[in-house]
């Protein structure tokens, strides 16, 4: 913000001359970087394949239709597994995320050291993708649904705990103060002062994460952690494109249903 004194009284401009020059310089450097990066990528791209992309896509699509509907019989069980992986995984994550969130929130943590530990749990859980958790868990406890559930749970703890502790930190402190003033104990203060305030956030976070987990659990099968991903992997490796298209349709349907359910739940609670 710049006020410039002139003979006609003060004048106001958004930036001083100096700031204005820096702004232009910033844009110039930014544009140059984009142009340079484009050239780097372009040099390493085989443009013949890219010009071919349209025809290739149409070719693959033509091999995908019509979906092989009879294959559906084999898909019912895997899709059921997928939904279970997501649901049980989310529930397990929530059970662990709630205490972690209370330990991580500035206003409920018993000690800064405990808070640091809780934040570390959150960060480490969030920094590893479900697929990578699954990869490791398949190696540790063997392939199957169990590995998928734990992978989803481990990945979701951080996500749920992070959103939950942020909402704990945003609560109205006066309500907590009032409960404290009655002579309530620590746990009672949490139960009466904090919990009612974060309940809507908790419900929203749970269904949101469940919704994400439905989508994530569809690919866990690629590394052998159960669910419909196993069929997807098998169909792609055997080039059975009509099966692939059916699986993609089933996944799409499941995700739409889960979106609908979570929207309903969120609406009912908030």
């Amino acid at each position: 913000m710049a006020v410039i004194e002139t003979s006609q009284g003060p004048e106001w401009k958004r930036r001083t001359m100096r700031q204005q020059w820096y702004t232009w310089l910033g844009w110039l450097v930014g544009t140059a970087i984009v142009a340079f990066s484009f050239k780097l990528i372009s040099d390493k791209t085989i443009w013949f394949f890219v010009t071919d992309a349209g025809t290739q896509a149409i070719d693959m699509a033509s091999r995908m239709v019509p979906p092989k509907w009879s294959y559906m019989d084999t898909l019912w069980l895997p899709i059921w597994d997928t939904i279970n992986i997501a649901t049980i995984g989310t529930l397990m994550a929530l059970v662990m995320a709630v205490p972690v969130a209370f330990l991580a929130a500035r206003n409920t943590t018993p000690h800064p050291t405990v808070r640091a530990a809780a934040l570390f749990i959150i960060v480490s859980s969030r920094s590893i993708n479900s697929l990578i958790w699954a990869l490791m868990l398949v190696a540790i406890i063997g392939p199957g649904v169990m590995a998928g559930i734990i992978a989803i749970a481990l990945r979701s703890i951080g996500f749920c705990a992070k959103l939950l502790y942020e909402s704990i930190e945003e609560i109205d402190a006066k309500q907590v103060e009032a409960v404290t003033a009655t002579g309530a104990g620590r746990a009672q203060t949490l139960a009466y002062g904090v919990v009612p305030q974060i309940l809507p956030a908790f419900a929203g976070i749970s269904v949101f994460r469940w919704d994400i987990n439905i989508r994530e659990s569809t690919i866990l099968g690629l590394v052998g952690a159960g669910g419909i991903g196993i069929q997807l992997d098998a169909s792609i490796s055997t080039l059975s494109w009509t099966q692939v298209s059916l699986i993609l349709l089933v996944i799409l349907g499941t995700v739409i249903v889960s979106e609908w359910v979570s929207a309903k739940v969120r609406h009912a609670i908030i």
Partner: protein
Amino acid sequence: MLKLDKLYKRYDTGDEALKDVTLEIPDGQVLALIGPSGAGKSTLIRCVNRLVEPTSGSVHLNDTELTTLSQGKLRSARRRMGMIFQEYALVERLTVMENVLSGRLGYVGFWSSWLRKFPKADVKEAFRLLDRVGLMHMPDKRADALSGGQRQRVGIARALIQDPELLLVDEPTASLDPKTSRQIMRLISELCKERGLAAIINIHDVMLAQMFAERIVGLRFGEVVYDGPPDGLTPDVLTDIYGEEDWEATITPVEDDEDTDTELTEANGA
């Protein structure tokens, strides 16, 4: 009997909120604490139940010295002091009944309070108090569905169900319209009389203070600058407390107001 002796509070920011305040409040006395914003009124009542820890000095509630109590003992001491807040500080997402019963948290265990299994006598008392404050018809309404005056009535019931020896009242009328303010102040002073309760009422409205308190204490910059009867508040005294201003209009005839107002409440209570 509440006795403050050389109560001193310095915040971490270096602000001295209370400078050696010494006060004695006999049983059953309703005391209004007036003074400009930042004079230390809120700090003073919060130092009594130690929502704010005093830096030095002592507070005696009958025979208990409050400032040195351990956390556990402090909790049982807090049960003897009911607190009423400026913006009601109800737990917004809980019902009226749950809010009133939360005044008993200091007396029941965690699990009974978590499962909302309060002793029959408590529930009975809660109904009696709701009836007394005029909210008998809405125990199951959620606090966030009430009007300001109704919320403050719930706040009063929550403080009284503690069966306190002392009421700490922090700006009870600051968010209420003039008529509701009077009704709330009248309710508080009537209840104090019924139960022989002592009360410290922080209040901005000098006229209300004069109307409903038997003793006025004026606080300025953390020091007591006036301590006397309501009719001792002359323009000179108010200038001492608040600073230079034309005070003649503020100290209007008190009796007239009281008459018209009594009719108002009666009409309202019917």
